[in-house]
Protein backbone atom coordinates (compact mmCIF):
# COMPACT_ATOMS: atom_id res chain seq x y z
CA UNK A 1 0.00 0.00 0.00
CA UNK A 2 1.43 3.38 -1.00
CA UNK A 3 1.91 5.98 1.70
CA UNK A 4 0.79 9.49 0.75
CA UNK A 5 1.33 12.48 3.04
CA UNK A 6 -0.75 15.57 2.34
CA UNK A 7 0.75 18.83 3.58
CA UNK A 8 -1.67 20.77 5.75
CA UNK A 9 -1.21 24.42 4.80
CA UNK A 10 -4.23 25.55 6.77
CA UNK A 11 -7.60 24.57 5.47
CA UNK A 12 -7.39 24.01 1.66
CA UNK A 13 -9.75 21.35 0.34
CA UNK A 14 -7.74 18.63 2.02
CA UNK A 15 -10.74 16.32 2.47
CA UNK A 16 -11.18 16.10 -1.30
CA UNK A 17 -7.48 15.40 -1.88
CA UNK A 18 -7.44 12.76 0.85
CA UNK A 19 -10.62 11.10 -0.46
CA UNK A 20 -9.13 10.88 -3.96
CA UNK A 21 -6.01 9.04 -2.73
CA UNK A 22 -8.09 6.85 -0.40
CA UNK A 23 -10.15 5.78 -3.42
CA UNK A 24 -6.89 4.77 -5.11
CA UNK A 25 -6.17 2.45 -2.18
CA UNK A 26 -3.40 4.56 -0.62
CA UNK A 27 -2.54 4.88 3.03
CA UNK A 28 -3.20 8.62 3.23
CA UNK A 29 -2.42 11.02 6.06
CA UNK A 30 -2.34 14.76 6.67
CA UNK A 31 0.69 16.41 8.21
CA UNK A 32 2.70 19.56 8.72
CA UNK A 33 5.64 17.75 10.30
CA UNK A 34 8.90 18.42 8.41
CA UNK A 35 10.45 15.03 9.25
CA UNK A 36 7.39 13.13 8.04
CA UNK A 37 7.42 15.14 4.83
CA UNK A 38 11.14 14.55 4.33
CA UNK A 39 10.82 10.78 4.71
CA UNK A 40 7.47 9.97 3.15
CA UNK A 41 7.24 8.06 -0.13
CA UNK A 42 4.75 10.44 -1.75
CA UNK A 43 4.00 14.03 -0.74
CA UNK A 44 1.19 16.29 -1.92
CA UNK A 45 1.27 20.07 -1.58
CA UNK A 46 -2.35 21.16 -2.05
CA UNK A 47 -3.59 24.66 -1.56
CA UNK A 48 -6.30 27.15 -2.10
CA UNK A 49 -6.21 30.73 -0.91
CA UNK A 50 -3.64 33.39 -1.65
CA UNK A 51 0.05 33.03 -2.55
CA UNK A 52 1.07 35.06 0.50
CA UNK A 53 -1.02 32.99 2.90
CA UNK A 54 0.35 29.77 1.39
CA UNK A 55 3.99 30.84 1.83
CA UNK A 56 3.27 32.07 5.35
CA UNK A 57 1.88 28.64 6.24
CA UNK A 58 4.91 26.81 4.77
CA UNK A 59 7.33 29.13 6.57
CA UNK A 60 5.47 28.84 9.87
CA UNK A 61 6.01 25.07 9.90
CA UNK A 62 9.50 25.32 8.37
CA UNK A 63 8.47 23.29 5.33
CA UNK A 64 9.85 25.37 2.45
CA UNK A 65 13.35 23.88 2.45
CA UNK A 66 12.01 20.34 2.92
CA UNK A 67 9.94 20.68 -0.25
CA UNK A 68 12.86 22.16 -2.18
CA UNK A 69 15.11 19.30 -0.97
CA UNK A 70 12.56 16.66 -2.02
CA UNK A 71 12.32 18.08 -5.52
CA UNK A 72 16.10 18.46 -5.81
CA UNK A 73 16.60 14.81 -4.84
CA UNK A 74 13.71 13.78 -7.13
CA UNK A 75 11.51 12.39 -4.35
CA UNK A 76 7.87 12.27 -5.62
CA UNK A 77 5.98 15.51 -5.01
CA UNK A 78 2.65 16.68 -6.37
CA UNK A 79 1.68 20.36 -6.21
CA UNK A 80 -1.98 21.17 -6.76
CA UNK A 81 -3.36 24.61 -7.73
CA UNK A 82 -1.75 27.08 -5.28
CA UNK A 83 0.64 24.20 -4.48
CA UNK A 84 1.94 24.49 -8.05
CA UNK A 85 2.17 28.29 -7.88
CA UNK A 86 4.19 28.18 -4.63
CA UNK A 87 6.94 26.32 -6.53
CA UNK A 88 7.51 29.51 -8.58
CA UNK A 89 9.61 32.53 -7.57
CA UNK A 90 6.84 35.10 -7.05
CA UNK A 91 3.24 36.04 -7.78
CA UNK A 92 1.39 39.19 -8.75
CA UNK A 93 -1.18 38.14 -6.17
CA UNK A 94 1.11 38.91 -3.23
CA UNK A 95 3.96 41.17 -4.24
CA UNK A 96 7.13 41.13 -2.17
CA UNK A 97 6.73 37.52 -1.05
CA UNK A 98 9.25 34.97 -2.32
CA UNK A 99 7.97 31.61 -3.50
CA UNK A 100 10.00 28.41 -3.27
CA UNK A 101 11.81 29.37 -6.48
CA UNK A 102 12.07 25.86 -7.93
CA UNK A 103 10.44 27.22 -11.07
CA UNK A 104 12.07 30.48 -12.11
CA UNK A 105 8.93 32.34 -13.16
CA UNK A 106 6.30 34.78 -11.92
CA UNK A 107 2.63 33.92 -11.52
CA UNK A 108 0.37 36.55 -13.10
CA UNK A 109 -3.35 37.32 -13.24
CA UNK A 110 -5.62 36.22 -16.07
CA UNK A 111 -6.44 39.10 -18.47
CA UNK A 112 -9.46 41.24 -17.55
CA UNK A 113 -11.28 40.08 -20.67
CA UNK A 114 -12.11 36.68 -19.13
CA UNK A 115 -14.21 35.54 -16.19
CA UNK A 116 -12.27 35.22 -12.94
CA UNK A 117 -11.98 33.11 -10.94
CA UNK A 118 -11.80 30.52 -13.70
CA UNK A 119 -14.31 28.10 -12.16
CA UNK A 120 -14.96 25.00 -14.18
CA UNK A 121 -13.73 22.41 -16.64
CA UNK A 122 -11.22 23.30 -19.31
CA UNK A 123 -9.55 21.16 -21.92
CA UNK A 124 -6.12 19.70 -21.06
CA UNK A 125 -4.50 17.43 -23.65
CA UNK A 126 -6.94 14.54 -24.25
CA UNK A 127 -9.40 15.34 -21.46
CA UNK A 128 -11.02 17.97 -19.28
CA UNK A 129 -9.75 19.18 -15.92
CA UNK A 130 -11.45 21.21 -13.19
CA UNK A 131 -9.84 24.58 -12.47
CA UNK A 132 -10.48 27.14 -9.75
CA UNK A 133 -7.95 29.96 -10.16
CA UNK A 134 -7.50 33.66 -10.86
CA UNK A 135 -3.71 33.60 -11.28
CA UNK A 136 -1.63 31.39 -13.55
CA UNK A 137 1.75 30.62 -15.08
CA UNK A 138 1.88 31.79 -18.72
CA UNK A 139 4.52 29.62 -20.37
CA UNK A 140 6.19 26.27 -19.79
CA UNK A 141 9.56 26.98 -18.15
CA UNK A 142 12.83 25.58 -19.53
CA UNK A 143 13.65 22.12 -18.27
CA UNK A 144 10.00 21.13 -17.66
CA UNK A 145 7.51 19.18 -19.73
CA UNK A 146 4.00 20.46 -19.63
CA UNK A 147 0.51 20.90 -20.99
CA UNK A 148 -1.13 24.20 -21.84
CA UNK A 149 -4.78 25.14 -21.61
CA UNK A 150 -6.66 28.24 -22.79
CA UNK A 151 -8.61 30.92 -20.88
CA UNK A 152 -8.47 34.19 -22.81
CA UNK A 153 -4.90 33.23 -23.63
CA UNK A 154 -2.84 30.11 -23.14
CA UNK A 155 -1.66 29.21 -19.65
CA UNK A 156 0.13 26.29 -18.00
CA UNK A 157 -2.23 23.53 -16.89
CA UNK A 158 0.40 21.02 -15.80
CA UNK A 159 4.18 20.64 -15.42
CA UNK A 160 6.33 17.54 -15.03
CA UNK A 161 10.00 17.08 -14.25
CA UNK A 162 11.27 13.76 -12.98
CA UNK A 163 8.94 12.67 -10.20
CA UNK A 164 7.61 16.20 -9.62
CA UNK A 165 4.14 16.87 -10.95
CA UNK A 166 2.54 20.30 -10.68
CA UNK A 167 -1.12 20.77 -11.66
CA UNK A 168 -2.88 24.12 -11.89
CA UNK A 169 -6.12 22.14 -12.05
CA UNK A 170 -7.54 19.92 -9.31
CA UNK A 171 -6.92 16.28 -10.29
CA UNK A 172 -8.85 15.24 -7.17
CA UNK A 173 -11.95 16.97 -8.60
CA UNK A 174 -11.45 16.03 -12.25
CA UNK A 175 -13.41 12.78 -12.35
CA UNK A 176 -11.93 9.67 -13.95
CA UNK A 177 -9.49 11.72 -16.02
CA UNK A 178 -8.04 13.26 -12.86
CA UNK A 179 -7.92 9.86 -11.19
CA UNK A 180 -5.67 8.63 -14.01
CA UNK A 181 -3.33 11.60 -13.51
CA UNK A 182 -3.01 10.70 -9.82
CA UNK A 183 -2.46 7.00 -10.40
CA UNK A 184 0.20 7.68 -13.06
CA UNK A 185 2.04 9.91 -10.58
CA UNK A 186 1.87 7.11 -7.99
CA UNK A 187 3.88 4.96 -10.43
CA UNK A 188 6.85 7.31 -9.92
CA UNK A 189 9.75 6.04 -7.85
CA UNK A 190 12.26 8.17 -6.01
CA UNK A 191 15.31 8.80 -8.15
CA UNK A 192 13.69 7.50 -11.34
CA UNK A 193 13.91 10.27 -13.87
CA UNK A 194 10.45 10.04 -15.47
CA UNK A 195 7.06 8.60 -14.62
Amino acid at each position, binding site marked *: MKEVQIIDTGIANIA*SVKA*AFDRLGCNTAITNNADVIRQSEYVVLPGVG*SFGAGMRALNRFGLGQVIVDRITSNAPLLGICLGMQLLCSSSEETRGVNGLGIIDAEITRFPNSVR*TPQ*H*GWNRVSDG*YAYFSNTYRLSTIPDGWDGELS*FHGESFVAMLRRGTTLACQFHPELS*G*DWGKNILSEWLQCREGVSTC
Partner: protein
Amino acid sequence: MLTTRVIPCLDIKNGRVVKGIRFANLRDAGDPVEQAVRYEREGADELVMLDVSATIEGASTALDVVSAVREQLSIPLSVGGGVRDTQHALNLLKAGADKVGINSAAVRNPNLITELASEVGSQCVVLSIDAASRIGSDGWEVVTHAGTFRTGIDAVEWAQSAEVIGAGEILLTSFDQDGTRSGYDTALLREIRKITSLPTIASGGADGAQHMVDAIRAGADAVLAASIFHDQRTTPNELKLKLAQSGIEVRKP
Protein backbone atom coordinates in the same frame (compact mmCIF):
# COMPACT_ATOMS: atom_id res chain seq x y z
CA MET B 1 -11.70 27.02 -23.49
CA LEU B 2 -13.69 27.02 -20.27
CA THR B 3 -16.86 24.93 -20.64
CA THR B 4 -20.34 25.67 -19.35
CA ARG B 5 -21.20 23.59 -16.29
CA VAL B 6 -24.38 21.59 -15.73
CA ILE B 7 -24.96 21.21 -12.00
CA PRO B 8 -27.53 18.98 -10.30
CA CYS B 9 -28.68 20.27 -6.92
CA LEU B 10 -29.52 18.09 -3.96
CA ASP B 11 -31.70 19.67 -1.28
CA ILE B 12 -30.95 17.81 1.94
CA LYS B 13 -33.18 17.56 4.96
CA ASN B 14 -32.28 15.36 7.93
CA GLY B 15 -29.92 13.28 5.81
CA ARG B 16 -32.31 12.70 2.89
CA VAL B 17 -32.74 14.36 -0.49
CA VAL B 18 -36.00 16.34 -0.73
CA LYS B 19 -37.64 18.43 -3.44
CA GLY B 20 -40.31 21.12 -3.19
CA ILE B 21 -41.93 23.94 -5.11
CA ARG B 22 -41.02 27.53 -4.24
CA PHE B 23 -38.99 26.17 -1.32
CA ALA B 24 -42.04 24.46 0.26
CA ASN B 25 -44.07 21.20 0.09
CA LEU B 26 -40.99 19.02 0.48
CA ARG B 27 -41.15 15.38 -0.59
CA ASP B 28 -38.56 12.62 -0.18
CA ALA B 29 -36.37 12.11 -3.24
CA GLY B 30 -33.76 9.59 -2.11
CA ASP B 31 -30.34 8.91 -0.60
CA PRO B 32 -27.77 11.69 -1.12
CA VAL B 33 -24.69 9.49 -1.63
CA GLU B 34 -26.47 7.24 -4.15
CA GLN B 35 -27.70 10.25 -6.08
CA ALA B 36 -24.37 12.07 -5.99
CA VAL B 37 -22.60 9.02 -7.42
CA ARG B 38 -25.24 8.58 -10.11
CA TYR B 39 -24.99 12.25 -11.14
CA GLU B 40 -21.22 12.07 -11.45
CA ARG B 41 -21.54 8.95 -13.61
CA GLU B 42 -24.17 10.69 -15.75
CA GLY B 43 -21.91 13.64 -16.51
CA ALA B 44 -22.55 16.23 -13.78
CA ASP B 45 -19.78 18.87 -13.82
CA GLU B 46 -20.24 19.75 -10.17
CA LEU B 47 -22.74 19.12 -7.40
CA VAL B 48 -24.52 21.63 -5.20
CA MET B 49 -25.97 20.46 -1.88
CA LEU B 50 -28.30 22.71 0.07
CA ASP B 51 -29.19 21.89 3.65
CA VAL B 52 -32.83 22.91 4.01
CA SER B 53 -33.29 21.48 7.54
CA ALA B 54 -32.94 24.90 9.16
CA THR B 55 -32.27 23.28 12.56
CA ILE B 56 -29.10 22.71 14.60
CA GLU B 57 -29.58 18.90 14.43
CA GLY B 58 -30.12 19.17 10.69
CA ALA B 59 -26.89 21.14 10.27
CA SER B 60 -24.91 18.50 12.11
CA THR B 61 -26.49 15.71 10.02
CA ALA B 62 -25.56 17.72 6.93
CA LEU B 63 -21.88 17.55 7.94
CA ASP B 64 -22.10 13.75 7.97
CA VAL B 65 -23.79 13.79 4.57
CA VAL B 66 -21.02 16.02 3.18
CA SER B 67 -18.35 13.60 4.48
CA ALA B 68 -20.15 10.56 3.08
CA VAL B 69 -20.66 12.18 -0.33
CA ARG B 70 -17.06 13.41 -0.40
CA GLU B 71 -15.71 9.89 0.08
CA GLN B 72 -17.37 8.83 -3.17
CA LEU B 73 -17.40 11.98 -5.29
CA SER B 74 -14.53 13.06 -7.57
CA ILE B 75 -16.12 16.24 -8.94
CA PRO B 76 -16.48 19.57 -7.09
CA LEU B 77 -18.96 19.80 -4.24
CA SER B 78 -20.49 23.12 -3.25
CA VAL B 79 -22.51 23.21 -0.03
CA GLY B 80 -24.90 25.81 1.30
CA GLY B 81 -28.12 26.33 3.20
CA GLY B 82 -28.35 27.95 6.60
CA VAL B 83 -24.60 28.67 6.90
CA ARG B 84 -24.54 30.96 9.93
CA ASP B 85 -20.95 31.96 10.57
CA THR B 86 -17.31 31.45 9.63
CA GLN B 87 -16.91 28.40 11.87
CA HIS B 88 -19.93 26.71 10.32
CA ALA B 89 -18.46 27.34 6.84
CA LEU B 90 -15.04 26.03 7.89
CA ASN B 91 -16.67 22.88 9.30
CA LEU B 92 -18.33 22.23 5.94
CA LEU B 93 -15.04 22.73 4.09
CA LYS B 94 -13.26 20.39 6.50
CA ALA B 95 -15.98 17.77 6.02
CA GLY B 96 -15.31 17.80 2.28
CA ALA B 97 -17.04 20.73 0.61
CA ASP B 98 -14.89 22.51 -1.99
CA LYS B 99 -17.01 25.66 -1.83
CA VAL B 100 -19.48 27.08 0.66
CA GLY B 101 -22.54 29.12 -0.25
CA ILE B 102 -23.70 31.85 2.13
CA ASN B 103 -27.15 33.33 1.85
CA SER B 104 -29.18 34.91 4.68
CA ALA B 105 -26.19 35.32 7.00
CA ALA B 106 -24.38 37.40 4.34
CA VAL B 107 -27.41 39.68 3.97
CA ARG B 108 -27.34 40.28 7.73
CA ASN B 109 -23.56 40.64 7.81
CA PRO B 110 -21.68 41.04 4.48
CA ASN B 111 -18.45 41.00 6.48
CA LEU B 112 -18.93 37.24 6.90
CA ILE B 113 -18.07 36.77 3.20
CA THR B 114 -14.98 38.96 3.59
CA GLU B 115 -13.80 37.11 6.70
CA LEU B 116 -14.28 33.71 5.14
CA ALA B 117 -12.59 34.72 1.87
CA SER B 118 -9.55 36.02 3.73
CA GLU B 119 -9.29 32.71 5.55
CA VAL B 120 -9.87 30.23 2.73
CA GLY B 121 -9.69 32.27 -0.48
CA SER B 122 -12.46 33.71 -2.64
CA GLN B 123 -12.52 30.58 -4.82
CA CYS B 124 -14.20 28.72 -1.94
CA VAL B 125 -16.84 31.35 -1.21
CA VAL B 126 -20.15 31.49 -3.06
CA LEU B 127 -22.67 34.26 -2.51
CA SER B 128 -26.11 32.63 -2.78
CA ILE B 129 -28.79 35.11 -3.77
CA ASP B 130 -32.49 34.27 -3.73
CA ALA B 131 -34.24 36.93 -5.79
CA ALA B 132 -37.95 37.63 -6.26
CA SER B 133 -39.73 40.16 -8.45
CA ARG B 134 -40.69 43.21 -6.46
CA ILE B 135 -44.37 43.49 -5.73
CA GLY B 136 -45.92 46.57 -7.30
CA SER B 137 -42.72 47.87 -8.94
CA ASP B 138 -39.94 46.88 -11.35
CA GLY B 139 -36.83 44.97 -10.44
CA TRP B 140 -35.97 42.21 -8.01
CA GLU B 141 -35.39 42.11 -4.29
CA VAL B 142 -33.40 39.70 -2.16
CA VAL B 143 -35.51 37.24 -0.19
CA THR B 144 -34.25 35.12 2.70
CA HIS B 145 -35.46 32.35 5.02
CA ALA B 146 -36.72 30.15 2.18
CA GLY B 147 -38.42 33.10 0.56
CA THR B 148 -40.56 33.99 3.55
CA PHE B 149 -38.75 37.26 4.27
CA ARG B 150 -38.56 40.07 1.71
CA THR B 151 -35.53 42.20 2.55
CA GLY B 152 -36.22 45.13 0.24
CA ILE B 153 -32.55 44.95 -0.86
CA ASP B 154 -32.10 45.33 -4.62
CA ALA B 155 -30.91 41.95 -5.92
CA VAL B 156 -28.83 43.44 -8.75
CA GLU B 157 -27.03 45.85 -6.41
CA TRP B 158 -26.38 43.01 -3.97
CA ALA B 159 -24.86 40.94 -6.79
CA GLN B 160 -22.72 43.91 -7.80
CA SER B 161 -21.20 44.05 -4.32
CA ALA B 162 -20.37 40.32 -4.31
CA GLU B 163 -16.90 40.67 -5.79
CA VAL B 164 -16.00 43.65 -3.63
CA ILE B 165 -16.86 41.82 -0.40
CA GLY B 166 -14.83 38.77 -1.50
CA ALA B 167 -17.13 36.20 -3.08
CA GLY B 168 -15.71 34.09 -5.93
CA GLU B 169 -19.00 33.02 -7.45
CA ILE B 170 -22.72 33.84 -7.42
CA LEU B 171 -25.47 31.26 -7.15
CA LEU B 172 -28.52 33.13 -8.37
CA THR B 173 -31.87 31.49 -7.62
CA SER B 174 -35.11 32.94 -8.89
CA PHE B 175 -37.69 32.49 -6.16
CA ASP B 176 -40.48 33.18 -8.69
CA GLN B 177 -39.32 30.44 -11.06
CA ASP B 178 -38.11 27.79 -8.57
CA GLY B 179 -39.90 24.47 -9.07
CA THR B 180 -42.22 25.86 -11.76
CA ARG B 181 -40.50 24.19 -14.74
CA SER B 182 -41.16 27.33 -16.80
CA GLY B 183 -37.54 28.39 -17.38
CA TYR B 184 -34.89 30.47 -15.62
CA ASP B 185 -35.44 34.19 -15.02
CA THR B 186 -33.44 35.35 -18.05
CA ALA B 187 -34.28 39.03 -17.55
CA LEU B 188 -32.68 38.88 -14.11
CA LEU B 189 -29.65 37.00 -15.47
CA ARG B 190 -29.12 39.66 -18.14
CA GLU B 191 -29.17 42.42 -15.51
CA ILE B 192 -26.73 40.52 -13.29
CA ARG B 193 -24.36 39.87 -16.21
CA LYS B 194 -24.17 43.61 -16.93
CA ILE B 195 -22.85 44.45 -13.48
CA THR B 196 -20.53 41.62 -12.41
CA SER B 197 -17.74 39.61 -13.99
CA LEU B 198 -17.98 36.89 -11.33
CA PRO B 199 -18.96 33.40 -12.50
CA THR B 200 -22.73 33.10 -12.08
CA ILE B 201 -24.80 29.95 -11.70
CA ALA B 202 -28.43 30.20 -12.86
CA SER B 203 -30.94 28.37 -10.67
CA GLY B 204 -34.70 27.98 -10.46
CA GLY B 205 -37.17 26.91 -13.15
CA ALA B 206 -35.25 24.57 -15.48
CA ASP B 207 -37.25 21.97 -17.36
CA GLY B 208 -34.91 21.11 -20.19
CA ALA B 209 -32.07 21.99 -22.51
CA GLN B 210 -33.78 24.97 -24.16
CA HIS B 211 -34.20 26.72 -20.79
CA MET B 212 -30.49 26.15 -20.18
CA VAL B 213 -29.52 27.51 -23.60
CA ASP B 214 -31.63 30.62 -22.86
CA ALA B 215 -29.96 31.12 -19.47
CA ILE B 216 -26.46 30.68 -20.91
CA ARG B 217 -27.21 33.18 -23.69
CA ALA B 218 -28.47 35.57 -21.00
CA GLY B 219 -25.06 35.32 -19.31
CA ALA B 220 -25.01 32.28 -17.01
CA ASP B 221 -21.69 30.44 -16.70
CA ALA B 222 -23.35 27.38 -15.23
CA VAL B 223 -26.89 26.04 -15.01
CA LEU B 224 -28.33 24.30 -11.96
CA ALA B 225 -31.36 22.04 -11.84
CA ALA B 226 -32.94 19.65 -9.36
CA SER B 227 -36.25 18.02 -10.19
CA ILE B 228 -35.51 17.13 -13.83
CA PHE B 229 -32.64 15.01 -12.52
CA HIS B 230 -34.41 13.61 -9.43
CA ASP B 231 -37.36 12.51 -11.55
CA GLN B 232 -34.89 10.90 -13.97
CA ARG B 233 -36.43 12.74 -16.91
CA THR B 234 -32.95 13.47 -18.26
CA THR B 235 -29.25 13.32 -17.37
CA PRO B 236 -26.48 15.95 -17.39
CA ASN B 237 -24.85 14.19 -20.37
CA GLU B 238 -28.09 14.20 -22.36
CA LEU B 239 -28.56 17.90 -21.67
CA LYS B 240 -24.94 18.72 -22.50
CA LEU B 241 -25.28 16.95 -25.85
CA LYS B 242 -28.17 19.30 -26.65
CA LEU B 243 -26.23 22.33 -25.39
CA ALA B 244 -23.34 21.34 -27.67
CA GLN B 245 -25.76 21.14 -30.62
CA SER B 246 -26.69 24.75 -29.83
CA GLY B 247 -23.03 25.73 -30.09
CA ILE B 248 -22.30 25.86 -26.36
CA GLU B 249 -18.95 24.47 -25.18
CA VAL B 250 -19.43 21.64 -22.67
CA ARG B 251 -17.29 18.89 -21.16
CA LYS B 252 -18.02 15.89 -23.35
CA PRO B 253 -18.24 12.38 -21.91
